[in-house]
Structures are given as structure tokens and as C-alpha cells.
């Protein structure tokens, strides 16, 4: 039985996605929607780790809680300040497309991890785990779709200006 490994994998991937969301939001602070929404989405993704936690002991593992990396303090301020300055230059758009692509790939990875765990939960007839997987996965898919939408929205202006 390697379901414990799969649970750990999802938890690790979710933490990484949440960190990436925050990092991208800060790098593109002048895109206010992105800056705000990435925080909300990161909180939701971290919540998935909390949702998995009660299932972990059944598979002899633990995932901890969803808390993210500690606040980098002055570093974060520097990143945001840099973003504001860069935000006055059109070239920042290319960086935005690259970051959205990275977020998309990251979210797609998490989504696949949920698929694997969901399949395993069905095979192991663990209805409780399956319910958690289904609920969390739909939220990760929403994040994934948002990355596509946001890239679609940004690309024409970035690439034709």
C-alpha cells in the first residue's frame, strides 16, 4: 500500500503551488487582480493540506498543516517595490506570460496528483478520502483554469504591443 506516499505527494505539491501563487502575485503586484486573487487561491490550496491531514494517519503518514513558508519580510517588500517599478515598463508582460505558464504547469501537476490519489481511494474503497479528493480537486482545477484564462487575457496585449 503506497497511498501514504501519494498523500504526501499531493500535500507537497499543494504547498509548492501555494508558494508559487504567492510569489507570482508579488512579482506582478501592479496587476492588482493577480496580486489579490493569488493570495485567495493560495489560501484555498493550503486548505487542501489541512483537509488531507485527518486521512494521513490511516496510511501511516502525516502531512502537517497547510502553513506556507515564513514571511520573508524585507525581501518581500523589495520584490514588490521592484515589481512596481518594472510594472511601468511593457517588457514586464513577457515575464507575466512566463510566470502564468509556470503556474499552469504547477497546478496541472497537482491536479494529476489528485487524480492518482482519487483512483487509489476508489481502489481502496476509502469513501471519506474520495470525498476529500473530489472536493479539493475541483478547486485545484478551478485554479488551473484561471491560469489559462489569465494568460489568454494577457497574451494579445503583451505580444502585439
Amino acid at each position, binding site marked *: 500500500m503506497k497511498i501514504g506516499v501519494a498523500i504526501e505527494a499531493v500535500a507537497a505539491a499543494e504547498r509548492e503551488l501555494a508558494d508559487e501563487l504567492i510569489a507570482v502575485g508579488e512579482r506582478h503586484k*501592479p*496587476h*492588482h*487582480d493577480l496580486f*489579490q*486573487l493569488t*493570495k*485567495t*487561491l493560495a489560501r484555498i490550496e493550503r486548505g487542501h493540506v489541512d483537509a488531507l491531514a485527518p486521512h494521513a494517519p490511516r496510511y501511516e503518514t502525516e502531512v502537517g498543516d497547510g502553513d506556507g513558508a515564513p514571511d520573508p519580510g524585507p525581501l518581500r517588500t523589495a520584490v514588490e517595490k521592484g515589481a512596481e517599478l518594472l*510594472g*511601468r*515598463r*511593457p517588457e*514586464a*508582460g513577457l515575464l507575466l506570460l512566463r510566470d502564468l505558464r509556470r503556474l499552469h504547469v504547477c497546478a496541472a501537476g497537482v491536479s494529476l496528483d489528485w487524480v492518482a490519489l482519487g483512483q487509489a481511494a476508489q481502489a481502496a474503497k476509502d469513501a471519506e478520502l474520495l470525498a476529500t479528493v473530489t472536493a479539493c480537486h475541483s478547486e485545484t482545477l*478551478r*485554479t488551473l*483554469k*484561471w491560469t*489559462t*484564462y*489569465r494568460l*489568454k*487575457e494577457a497574451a*494579445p*496585449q*503583451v505580444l*502585439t*504591443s
Partner: protein
Amino acid sequence: MSTTDADPAAVHPRIADPWGARTPYPRDSEWPVRVDQHLAPGVDEDDVDWFLSASILHSNGDEIDIAVKDGRIVGVRGDRHSRVNRGRLGPKDLFGWQANASPERLTRPLLREAGELHETDWDTAMERIVSRSKELLSESGPGAFGFYTSGQLFLEDYYTLSMMTRAGIGTNHLDGNTRLCTATAGEALKESFGSDGQPGSYADVDHADAICCYGHNVAETQTVLWMRMLDRLSGPDRPRLLVVDPRRTPVAREANIHLALRSGTNLALLNALVHELIARDWIDHDYVEANAVGFEELAGSVEGCTPEWAAGICGLEPREISAAAELIGTTDRLLSTVLQGLYQSHQATAAACQVNNIHILRGMLGQPGCGVLQMNGQPTAQNTRETGADGDLPGFRNWANDAPVEELAWLWNVQLAQIPHYGPPTHAMEIFRYCEEGSIRFLWVSATNPAVSLPELERIRSILAEERLFLVVQDIFLTETARFADVVLPAATWGEKLGTFTNADRTVHLSEKAVDPPGEARPDMDIFRDYAERMGFTDKEGAPLIKWSDPEGAFEAWKECSRGRPCDYSGITYERLREPHDLQWPVTDERPDGTERLYADADFHAHPDDCESYGKDLLTGAPLDPPEYRALNPDGQAILKAADYVPPHEQPGDEHEFRLNTGRNIYHFHTRTKTARAPELQAAAPEPWVELSPADAESLGIGEGDMVEVASPRGSIVAPARITDIREGVVFVPFHYGYWDTDGGDSPNGAARAANELTITDWDPASKQPLYKVAPVSVRKA
């Protein structure tokens, strides 16, 4: 009620009592006529000529006759035949017309030379705009152009602008300031019913047994609609009134239940109300089964949203929420109205959709007294939406569906690819973002004043002042925004040009040209046409793109564009609009007298082939794919949208412990460009103020009239305190006041006073409407 100014120093009775005398009436009867009139001192009503029009100082659409003597506007009177106002006028209607004759009107174009604006002639001004446009079009393409228009022009102006930008320039970057006032109304209607279109009618007030005003201070924003409600409330079959508002507004004072909730928590409250309707089975199951999709998802989403849960979030008592649900759940005729308290707040679209959900769940749509009024903030916002001058395509066409866009290309006789439809039209906040980053380098602002009305003004001023941005401002006064312009174009306004516009309950008005515009000022449509001609915009056969030369020609072209669409004007003519009988769209061969209520037979425009939008995820704004929507709603039923409450992005903390609520006042409209130039209105509310609760005032040592400083991370303002019954922890500042009538001119000189110095740059993910009612602020005695 006829009034004339005997003593100009005295406060006019209609300033002192803005709603005038009551004319109570019982349920299911006709609202009595009361004709309000105001003429300049010394003018006799027998000596004037009357011209048909309606108000453009709010969104109610009060029909007004303009009095003219010796070529000048000398007064107004309410139209007794109007289904909207039945003769009544509000204070802005009674006095606002005086601004037309202000000596400060722009009468000649202005051009920036060596840093200063100088008068010039039309040819020079237009050639400057055209040469810059051509240069930029060949250098950077259509994406470098942005157009930001208004909710105060006429339908003919907007349709011309929409065609000129989308098919002429070929840019997606066109939006209206309607984004700030009515975007959520449109979006919520699209989400719930597949397409924009106001379901209800003002006449629902005559028939309702319960009226719910969600974030809608109707007494100040639509004074005449409030008169109608007051007349029912003081009549024999008084409807019950529920008011959701953190302030104790004149509407709240009349309420049976007033929920003074914490700012930014509307969705938590509404989810709890829906929870109660389901838990207590106040649901029309047959209606829902036959006419809606999404019930299971909605029920699941609100499962935990008990009154106790919401009470903690909203700062209310659980029993207040249960009582509100009972008021909604036990009435047979429910009228709901919604405005900025929801639209300009956190989770705007999700909250507005829950109001639609209540009506779907209760099966109360399209019948007398059973209506939803998702209100508009501005007088002609409806037409900005209809004609696609606002970030939609004309005629409520779906940008994500090629068939309706092909139809538009056929109508305009251009190639399909000339009309950008690879993504949603760019919303105003993104247009300004593109200006900020420098990818838009040409911005044409018509009839609006972003330097006062957009959030975070320091940022907006820095964008408008950017050297690389070529800024054209078309207005009737030298506004704060106009002072940043490279070229200023003087426009004609209401009473000086012919055209039509439509109010929030789909009533179409004709507004006659009563007087000549001042100096060289020109109608907005003529300015757009002139630009299109000078730019050489053509259709695919090389003929001029815009084929009309007068307002009626534009209207006839619009009728064809609207034919078969939900907002169908095909049965309307200027001649019919001059008759006393009002018309509400759709007006077609089958419905020649118009349509009082939409969806009487659950005939929604929500079919996948017909809908304006496939809908969006309300948390992220990501649109549904066409196949997803087709699977969700194959038969075009109403859609019960669900969304979870999430806390506002910025939370009050140690430093900024209050929530700022910005809003409107009864005596002013928008950025006061007109109303401050009407002496009675300006005297009634000459300067901004800060409203705070008695408890907060006491703990801060602030007395009535003391100067207080309100600060956010973005800026600060100073204004005198008014201690009112507002909810503790919330402060209110009216947003109307900028700097054009101060020493600063376009920005603060000394302490700032514009509420939007404080607001946050953030918007609803679905409607893209900015958030004006949640910014954390600090308050202290100045």
C-alpha cells in the same frame, strides 16, 4: 406642485424636503399624478416652449419637459404621462439644468502647446488627434488605443463610438465608466439569465407585498422611485420593507427590518438567506424543476450557511437574519432592488446573483409585483451596455460565439477578423493598467472624469500625466481629467442635441434638441463621426464605415443591430417616442407596445446558441468553456449560481481599524461637474464630510463638525465630521468631491478631499467593477 423662487436666499422647499408631498395609493392601483415644475424667477409658463426629454442626472429616467424662452433653457416640469415619474421630479432634475448655461462651459477645442492648454479651432484639434492616431496605428497597431466613455451620452453616440472603435480602429479596449456603476448589474443578469436585460419594472412597486433594497439607498440615488415606494408605504396596504445597508439611510428608517451589516459581508448574509429559504422550504419546487439548473450545487454550497454562521461574519443577530428570510419567504409578491452597496463591494457579482437566485427559487419573476431590479448608477448606462460601448459586444452578442459576431460583421459590412473577439473586451481597470505599463499610448476619454471617480487617485493622476500617453478628453467642462489632456474637445449635452436613452427598467426616452450648444461645442456623435471620416475608416467595400449623418440615422442602424436580440428596438421610431405612451424594450412587430416585464413565461435568453455569456466562475472570473455551458444548461434555463463567502482582501488592523464606505448624496451627481453649477444643489451640499457613529466619535474625541483625517495606505483626506447612525467601525465619505473648484484644479493643493484618494485598486473578478466600499482606513481628529 409648482414652485418658483421668490427669495433666492431661502432654502427651496424641494431642497429641504427632496421627496415632496405624499400621494398615498393602495396596492394594484395606479400611482397618482403629481406634476413638479421649476422655472427661473420671473418666467411665466405661458411664455415658454416645451421640449420632450428625460433626466440624465441619475438612472431613474424621469421624463422631463424642458422649458425654453428666447433660446435659453429656463426651467423644467415633470411629464404627467410618464410611466416612470407621473409628473414628479427630484431635486437634481428641478435645478440641475442651470449648469447648461454656466459661463464655464467649454466652447472651443483646446490644444496643449509647451505644457499649457490653448484654444484652437476644430480642424487643428482634430488633425492633431488624427495624425497621432495614424502614426500610432502604423507603429503599434490597434492595441495601443484605448477608449473610455460614459453613462451620460445618448444611445446614438455610444453606437457610433462602439462601431468606430471595434470595426474602425479594431481595438478591444473600449469601456464605459458604467464599469464603476452598473457592470455588476449586467454581469449578474448574464450569470443568472444568460443575457443582460432587466427582468422587472418600476410598476412592480405598485403591486409588491414585500420590497427588499440591497445596498440600495434609493431615497438618494433614485428619488422618484423612492417617492413611489413611500406612497405605497404610506398607503393602505403597506408592503413590508427589508433594507440591507451599513448606514441608517432614509430608506432604512422606513424599514420593517434593517440589517446594518459589516462592510464586505454581503455574500455571507445572502448565502444565509438562501440557506433559510431552502431549510424552511420556502421554495417553488415546480418552478425550479421546470425552469432552472444548478439547484443541487446551490443547496450544497449554502448547506453550512446558517443564520448563526452568517451572524458572526456580518455582525448581526441570528434572529434578524431569520426574520429577514421569513419576510422574503412568506410573501406572495416580492420586489428586490440592488445597487452599489452590493455592486461596489466585495464579492459583488456573487452577492447580486444570490438576489436573482431568491427570485428563481421563489418562482417570482415576470409577474406584477414580482420583480428584480438590478439598478443602474448612471442615466444612460443601459445604452452603454446595449450598444457595446462598455466591454460587451453590441446587442448583447456573445464574444465567445462566432455566429453572433459574424452577424455583427455582416451588419457593419466588415471582415469578421476586424472585430476583436478572441477574448472579452477590455475592462476599464485593465485599460488604465495598459496605460500605466505603456502599452496603450492613446486614450480618448468622453464625458467622464476618472481623475475623481476611479480608485486610488494618486495612481490615476500619475497615469494621466504620463508623457507617453496621448490623452483626448471630450467634455462640457474643464474637468480634473481634462486638465491632463493633450487635446480637449467641447461637447454639446442634454437639451442641446437630439437622441435617445433608456432607463433601468428598459423605458426608452427621446430627448429633443431644445437650444443650441454654446460656442463651437458639438454633439458627441458628430465628433466621433468626424474622427472616423478623417481616419478614413471604411467597410470591406471601401465605403465609409459609418453610414449615418444624423441621430435618427444612427437610431435606425441601431434598430437593425438590435433586431432579434433581447434588447430589440426594431418596433420603435422617433415618431413613436414623441407620443405620450412610453415604450419598454423589447418592442417588436409581435410586441408593438413593448414589454413591461421580462421572463413572464421563463423565456430566458440562456440557450447556448443565444446567450450573451457562458458564465464565469465567480471567485476567479474564469469563463466557462462553450461545451461546459452546453452541458450545464442545454435547454437555456435560468442558472442558480453559487459561490462561497471569502473574506475581503484587505482586513482592518491596528493601523487601519475602520472600513471606508464611499457613496452618493441626493444633491449631487457623479463628480459634480453639473450639480455644483446649480446654485441650489451646491448650497445644499457644498463640501465633503466624514460620517461616523456616535460611539466611534466618542472614543476618538471627535465632535460634530470637527475636522477629521481619514487615511489609508494610499492616501489621506481631511473633512468635517458628521455623527450619524452609521454602523460602528464604518466611516462614510461621499465620492463626488474633486478639485476643479479648489485651488488645486486637478489635484489636491494642501489637504486632499476626494474619497478616492483612499480607495484600493481591486475589482470583482466576474464583473470587474472596482471596490469602493471596503478599504481599511484610520480616522483621527485633524
